[in-house]
C-alpha cells in the first residue's frame, strides 16, 4: 500500500541536525543537550521529548521582545528524534563551530540551548518594518537551523566602503560583525503614491555575508497560528 511513500522514510542519523528533504528539520535529541525551537514548529517526534514553552531562562534573555505574550521559543528536552518545520519554508542547517550569526526573528527555527545567544533590536529600523524587526545573535559550538521562503542566496559584502542594501522583508541572516544601518529612500514622490515600492533598506558594510530569501513575504506564520 505505501510503496510510493517508502522513499520518504527518515535516513539514518548522522548529525545533531539534518535536513529531511528541503523543508523539514530532523534533530537527534539527547538528554542534557537541550534545544530551543520556535513555538509551534514541531511537526512530529519519536521517543521521549518534552516541551516547555516560555521557559524562565528565555524570558530573562529575551525581555526585549515586546511580544506581550511571552517569548516565541520553547525548550525541548529528552531523547528522541524531533521533526520541525515552518509551513513549507526551506530549512538551512548550520554547524556554527565557533562562528556567530545574526538571524532575523521569523527566520529562526531552532538552535542548541548551550549556545551563547542574545536578542537585540535592529537599530534605526524597527520603526519602519511593520513586524518590529528584532534579531537573535547566536554564537558558540553547536547547531542552528534557519528557515527561508525559497532557496536562499548568500552574498559576500566584500569589505571596504561599499554597502549592500537589503529589503528587510527578504533578509534572513547576516554575519554579526557587519555594520548595519537603516536607509530610507523616501522621496517626495513616494508620499503622493508614486513610490518605487522600495521605501527602506538595510545597509550592510564590512567583512561578512548576508543571507537573503527570494520572497518578501516575511509574515510570521507560526505566530499567526498562535
Amino acid at each position, binding site marked *: 500500500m505505501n510503496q510510493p511513500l517508502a522513499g520518504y522514510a527518515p535516513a539514518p*542519523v*548522522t*548529525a*545533531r541536525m*539534518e535536513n529531511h528533504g528541503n523543508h523539514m528539520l530532523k534533530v*537527534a*535529541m*539527547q*538528554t*542534557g*543537550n537541550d534545544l530551543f525551537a520556535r513555538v509551534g514548529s514541531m511537526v512530529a517526534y*519519536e521517543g*521521549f521529548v518534552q516541551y516547555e514553552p516560555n521557559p524562565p531562562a528565555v524570558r530573562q534573555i529575551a525581555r526585549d521582545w515586546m511580544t506581550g505574550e511571552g517569548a516565541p521559543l520553547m525548550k525541548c528536552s529528552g*531523547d*528522541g*528524534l524531533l521533526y520541525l518545520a515552518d509551513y513549507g519554508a526551506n530549512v*538551512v*542547517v*548550520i*554547524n*556554527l*563551530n*565557533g*562562528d*556567530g550569526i545574526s538571524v532575523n526573528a521569523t527566520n529562526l527555527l531552532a538552535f542548541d540551548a*548551550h549556545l551563547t545567544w542574545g536578542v537585540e533590536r535592529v537599530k534605526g529600523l524597527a520603526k519602519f518594518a511593520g513586524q518590529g524587526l528584532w534579531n537573535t545573535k547566536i554564537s558558540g*559550538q*553547536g547547531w542552528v537551523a534557519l528557515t527561508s*521562503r*525559497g*532557496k*536562499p*542566496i*548568500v*552574498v559576500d559584502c566584500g569589505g571596504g566602503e*561599499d554597502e*549592500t*542594501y*537589503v*529589503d528587510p522583508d*527578504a533578509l534572513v541572516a547576516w*554575519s554579526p560583525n557587519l555594520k548595519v544601518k537603516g536607509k530610507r*529612500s523616501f522621496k517626495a*514622490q513616494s508620499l503622493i503614491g*508614486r*513610490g*518605487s*515600492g*522600495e521605501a527602506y*533598506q538595510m545597509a550592510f558594510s564590512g567583512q*561578512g*555575508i*548576508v*543571507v*537573503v*530569501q*527570494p*520572497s*518578501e*513575504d516575511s509574515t510570521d506564520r507560526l505566530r499567526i497560528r498562535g
Partner: protein
Amino acid sequence: MPREFQRGHKARISDLTAGTDLYVGVQISAPGLSFDISCFGLDADERLSDDRYFVFFNQPKSPEESVQLLGAQAGDTESFRITLDRIPAQIQKLSFTATIDGAGQMSQIAPGYLRIVAGGEEVARYAFNGSEFTTERAVMLGDFYLKDVWRFAAVGQGFDGGLEALLKNFGGEVAEEEAPAAPSQPQAGASPGFAPPAFGAPGPAPVPAPAAPQQPQPAAAQGFAPPPGATPPPAPAPAPSVHGAPTIVAPLTPPGGVHVPPPAPAPAPYGQPQPPYGQPPQQQPYGQPAAPGAPMPPGYGQPQAPQAPMPPGYGQQPTPPGYGQQPPFGQAPGQQAYGVPQGAPQGGAGVTAALQQFKETPTGQRWTQQNRKLVRVDLGVGGQPVLARQGSMVLYQGKVDFSYKGAGFAGRIVGNATGQEMQLMRCTGQGQVFLAENSTMLHPIELQGDGICVSAENVLAFDESLQYEVRRVEGHGIPGGALFTMQFTGTGTIVVKTHGVPVVLPVTPTTFADCNAVVAWSAASQVVVSSQVRMRRNAYPGDTGESVNLQFRGAPGNFIVVQPYEV
C-alpha cells in the same frame, strides 16, 4: 534539473552554468548500427578551415586541447570535454555531429540525447529520436557558437549524404581527398570501402578496404561503395545560418509524418520508447549521473560544489564541534537508536561551509539566474535601465536608484481597460540588483528580435530596450469579450515568473491551455479560443470549472508555457 532543449532552441551557456569547462555527452544508438560522433571546430564562415579542429576518434583532441574526445562513459555513446575559454579566437563554432557507420538511416535510431554536464551536474539536455528523421545518414545534433558570448543551440538537422556531405558542408571541396580527416574516415570523400572504425592506418585515401571481414552486417558484405561520381547528393539544404532566425529554422519533420517506421526497439539497452520532448527528470532511463551509484562524469572544475573544501571561516581555528562529549546516557530500553553522532557533517563546519551551497554565482553577464527563484541583473553591463515590478528587489549592491515608472496617460487608460497593467519601477545606476518575488520560479528569456506574449501579472522584470504593447485575443467564449496579454518584442531579456515548475509545450495542431494557467507563448503562434467548453458551461447552471480554453496554432518551433497554478 537539466534544462530541456528542443530542436531550434538556443541559450547562452552562461545562463546554463557559470563554468566554462564542460562535458558534452551524446547518446545515440540503433539496433545493429554504430555511430561516429565528431566535433567540428568551424571558423566565422562556418568552414572547417583548420583540419586540426575536426575532433573524432582518430584525432581525439585539438592542438591546445580545448576540445577533447573522452570516449563512451556514464551511459553516453561518446563524450567530449570542452574548455570554452581555451578555444582560439578563430574558432567561432563547435558543431557536434553523428554519422551512421555503415548502412542505415536516422529514422532507425532509438531515443537519444545530447547533454551538457558542468561540475558533475547535468545542465542541459536536447533529446531526439528516430521519428524526427527519415533517410538521413548524418545529423548535426547541436552547436556551441560564439555570438558575443558562447551559446548552445539544439540543431537536430539531418544530412542525406552522410559524413561526406557533412564534410562538404563544412569544408567545401577543398582538398577533400587529402584532408587528414578523410583517409581514416570510413565514408569520407572518395574512400570506397567500409573501413571499420578501428581501421587506424592513415594510408592514402583510395586504398580500397577489402570488404571488412569484421563487419557482421549483411549490408557491409554487399560492398556498398558508391563510385565517387555516384555519391548521393549532399544535403538538400546546406545549413542556412541557424542562429540568425528568430525562433526556429531547422526544417522539422512534423511528428507523425514518418516515412519509415522505426524498427521495434527490441534490444535497445536504453529502452522504452518515450515522448520526444520532456521526459520527467526523476525517471532515469539512461543511468544518468544523478543516479546514486552511477559513475559520475568527470566533474572537472566544479565552480560551486557543495563539498568544496571549506575556506577558513572568520578567523577561528577549525576545532571539531565539541559539544557532544557527554557519555551516552543510560539507555532506556528500546531507545538506543537516538545516539547523536559526533563529528562535523560532510563539507566541514562553520557558517561559511554550511552556506557554501547558497553562494552567489558571479558572472560577467547582465542577467544571471542565481537559483530557480532569484535572478541577478548587473546594471553596469549593457548600461541601460531595467524595469522591474515594484517591490521585487530583495538586495542590491552599488549605486542603484529606484524610481517610479508611470505608464503614462494613455498607458493607464489602456491598463485600466484591459487589466494588463504593470506596477513598475525603473532601476538605474551602476550595481547588481537581485530580484525575486514570493518565491515564484523565475525564467529569464532572451529575445533576439522575436516576440513573446506574457500575461502582465507574470512579468517580473525586463530590459528597457524591449517594446511592449497590449495585445488582444478575440473569441466568443471569453467573458468580457476578449482576453488581453502583453506582447514583448525587440532585443533584450525579460524575466517571467511562474508559480511552480511550468511545462513548456511545443505548439502542435492540437495544443490547448487553460487561459488562467497559461503564462506565455511565442508571439508567432496564433491563438484561437476553443468553444467546446462554452457549451458545457451553458449546460449547467453553475460554473463547471474550466472556463476558457485557448488553442494554439503555429509553425513548429513555437511554444507555450503553462504553470501549475490557475490564477
